[in-house]
């Protein structure tokens, strides 16, 4: 699978959220500006599991734990969907850049 465009990654995230988020009690539209923890109410472990679905979809692993560790070090408490898109975009095969 070649590296997808950012909008494709965004749509893949939306599709994954739709697939796994049936019970998540969040009915607003999810946009690039939606916060994963603050708006969707996820915990970091939930985002990692969400990431595992994306890993399965893209058939590659992404350094999610390392990413969250770096965020914590920088005292960043929450990320938007666009941050997740950027993270995935930066870490597709052949690249390795957590932040």
């Amino acid at each position, binding site marked *: 699978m070649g590296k997808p465009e950012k909008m494709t990654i965004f749509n893949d995230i939306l599709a994954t959220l739709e697939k796994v988020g049936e019970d998540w009690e969040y009915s607003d539209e999810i946009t690039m500006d939606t916060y994963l923890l603050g708006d969707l109410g996820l915990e970091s*472990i939930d985002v990692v599991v969400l990431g595992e679905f994306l890993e399965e979809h893209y058939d590659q*692993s992404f350094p999610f734990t390392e990413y969250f560790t770096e965020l914590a070090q920088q005292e960043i408490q929450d990320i938007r969907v666009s941050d997740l898109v950027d993270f995935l975009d930066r870490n597709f095969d052949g690249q390795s850049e957590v932040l």
Partner: protein
Amino acid sequence: MAHQQATTMVIGLDGATYSILYPLMEAGHMPYLSRFVAEGARAELASTIPPITPPAWTTIMTGRSPSSHGILDFFRPESPGSRFLRFVSTKQLKCETVWSLMTRNGRSSVCLNFPVMSPPIPISGYSIPGFVTWRHLRHSCHPGDLMDTLKTIPGFDLKIIAHDFGLEEKVVAGCSREESEEWIKYHTYKDDQWVKVMTYLAGQDPCHLNAMVLDSIDRLQHVFYRLLDPECYKDGLSEEDRHIQSMLHAHYRELDAMIERMAGAAGPDGTVFIVSDHGFGPSEHCFYLNSLLEKRGYLTWSDRAVTETEGGGDVSMDAVKNHGHLLDWERTTAFVNTPSSNGITINVRGKNSKTGIAPEDYDRVVNRLRDELLAVNHPTTGEPVVKQIWTREEAFAGTDSEMAPDLTLRLWDNGLVSTVKSDKIIKARKECIGVHYPMGVFMARGPGIKAGARLDPLNILDVAPAMLYSQGLPIPEDYEGRVPEEMMTPEALAANPVVIGDASSQADHLGDDAPEMDEEDMELIMKRMKGLGYIS
């Protein structure tokens, strides 16, 4: 799935230990368990090395040792060679579960709250995994619409059966006095909800093998062991402690009633096993092994590591996954990867690290470390801190897991080591806590099982053979334990001798359809690892 074969019910009590159960039974808090013991056979049950939840329950559900089934810890590397960790999942499981084996033999199973059962494995029957947050519970269950079915149970609380990682931190952080009552009530309620699921499924669609883990005992004993083991409170308790203790006793009385309900669901001809994954005991001190390794020149902390001067040395699950940034990897040759491993990993240049010791120095370093560890004495008692050390080959022969430590330790108090940076190597805890001991419990009652029999200690590897034997199935020849034949009456054993059958299969995801890793894939992985700096 209605069936003719008698039902087997396996009641898993995480962390159950006779040192607490016997006094509670004698005091009349667990009348059903007292009857169960009188009517059945019991033994101590030796756990895995180290005695922790994921490898131990996985051994119970596969009949194989951690080296074989591949689950050695709560964690796995985020990717090959990564210093960052994630929770283990069924994707790391190398062996077939008894639920899959039952399915191959045309039998159905229910498995509830077992760790390492997510993503779900398709079986004939039902599974709901443990250690999964409520947001991911729906798609972690089998069959996929199980949650919708469960929502129809009157009074059923879906969220409560999920794993709340934030709340569970109390296991390591402890409870304030104000939180203690809520912590106990939460677990009584949570266990009750799980039992509701089991009894509902048993009533609606009876399966052959039913197994469930209740984890309240582990969670409460970690925090309140000192109030449960009479040896710990023989010098008396404060009025406040007595109040908490009475609440704990009430919990065990409720739990006893729940066990009776589950055992009842097996029917009069059913076989019931009560097993724990490990035992429990008291711990009053904490051993900071990474700090010892620093003092001996094996480990260097990074600038991000903060020295703990107060506290119990315990770290949250979340912090364990992230410890990769706390060490200066260029200048570290030996380190503790996770507290739960109770082990030391050695960086070997070109093997698991681009820095570290030369491969030809491995045996020398292992021997030196072993000698140094055995010479560490407790500052208060003067006794050796490390009671036993296993090498990687001794504890995990044949495994290729990156999580297998090069040295695994058993401490003087059976406690787990701390990975955090500390100003002292051993510190007294603020309060005595409960830690995992190697000997858990095994109890069995049913047709042909001796009444009131007290057996010699069994091994946790013996539980899966016992389950399959109760179902009249052959025991796979590659199972590493045995059917505890001594629990059966001679007549029952003669009528139903143990039969050894074909070897078990691989884990479902490793089946014939699983893609083999070709040279191109391997090259790509090596390229990535080089890019990340883990291979020179």
